[in-house]
């Protein structure tokens, strides 16, 4: 590493400020001004549009196995989604997923 202390602090300060501005952007500037119906319609899908795409590569190509698909993790993910869809209950889904994960890891000799 050839970074000086001042350079590292520059990164920290600018990354902190930039990240805050990203988070503050819409919530801070729009406030309670009305938004166009089409925009509201798009934004309704934000959580289901971001998180599945964020998690999918972690399920198929986990870093812990060097990017190799791992059957224990894939089944645990499917069980979590299945129980979540069926029960509509977050804690049941987490519980089922974690139990399946460790059972799968034990069964495949990874535990």
């Amino acid at each position, binding site marked *: *590493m*050839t970074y000086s*202390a001042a350079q*590292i*602090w520059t*990164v*920290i*300060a*600018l*990354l*902190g400020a930039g*990240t*805050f501005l*990203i*988070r*503050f952007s*819409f*919530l*801070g500037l*729009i*406030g309670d*001004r009305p938004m166009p119906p089409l*925009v509201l*319609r*798009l*934004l309704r*899908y*934000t*959580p*289901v*549009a*971001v*998180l*599945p*795409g*964020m*998690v*999918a*590569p*972690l399920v*198929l190509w986990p870093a*812990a196995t060097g990017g190799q698909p791992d059957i224990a*993790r894939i089944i*645990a*993910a499917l069980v*979590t*989604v*299945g*129980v*979540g869809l069926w029960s509509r*209950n*977050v*804690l049941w*889904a*987490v519980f089922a*997923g*974690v139990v399946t*994960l*460790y059972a799968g890891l034990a069964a495949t000799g*990874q535990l």
Partner: protein
Amino acid sequence: MATSTVKTATRSAYWAGVRDGTPFILVASPFALLFGVIATDAGLTLGQAMGFSVLVIAGASQFAAVQMITENAGIAFVLLAALAVNLRMAMYSASLVPYLGPAPLWQRALISYLNFDQTYITSIGRYEARPEMTVPERAVYFLGVATPITPLWVLMTLVGILAGTAIPDAWALDFIMPIMFLAMVAPMMKSLAHLAAALASIIVALLLFWMPSGTGLLIAAVAAMMVGATVETWMETRGS
């Protein structure tokens, strides 16, 4: 009388948030611990590593920045890559406007500082499930969710710096986070449009996974929102 009822409702919304945020201690702690270890290994001082966790509070971008610093990438590249990782939070910010827009500016600023994946997904799930929540209840609920996670995030970074050992890989804690996110998203599949959006998100994100710094995820998210809105419109025209 009326004021005290409101106060009680707000207080219970805060504690509901604390309760719903608590399970995330399990995933945030090892992640923060690992950041402390890796930042120290990379040659950052205690103050610098803590600076990241306090001022940025966005795990993935902190790891990306430290990684690129050790590779001696230019400051501009480090910032661009790490900020790109966090750009999805602009979407979070926008989608909170219909729920929190009328809150006082200082509350919106505080919530913005604390708006990361865990607090966002937990809070938006609650707001969607309970449309009757008032704006003050929503605001304190969000702060409640952040209450157990944020101090632990900072504290466990410090433990990682001082202890220098991460939790063994065999515990597979890397995978508890995906499980928690999936568990929170699955109950949100309220319609065909939500399901279509989620599928679009998965497919496009996997196809574009090769793109740097999570830019593929941003494209996937925008595409998925458009799919969701389109299917919703299509179902309305079909229904009428």
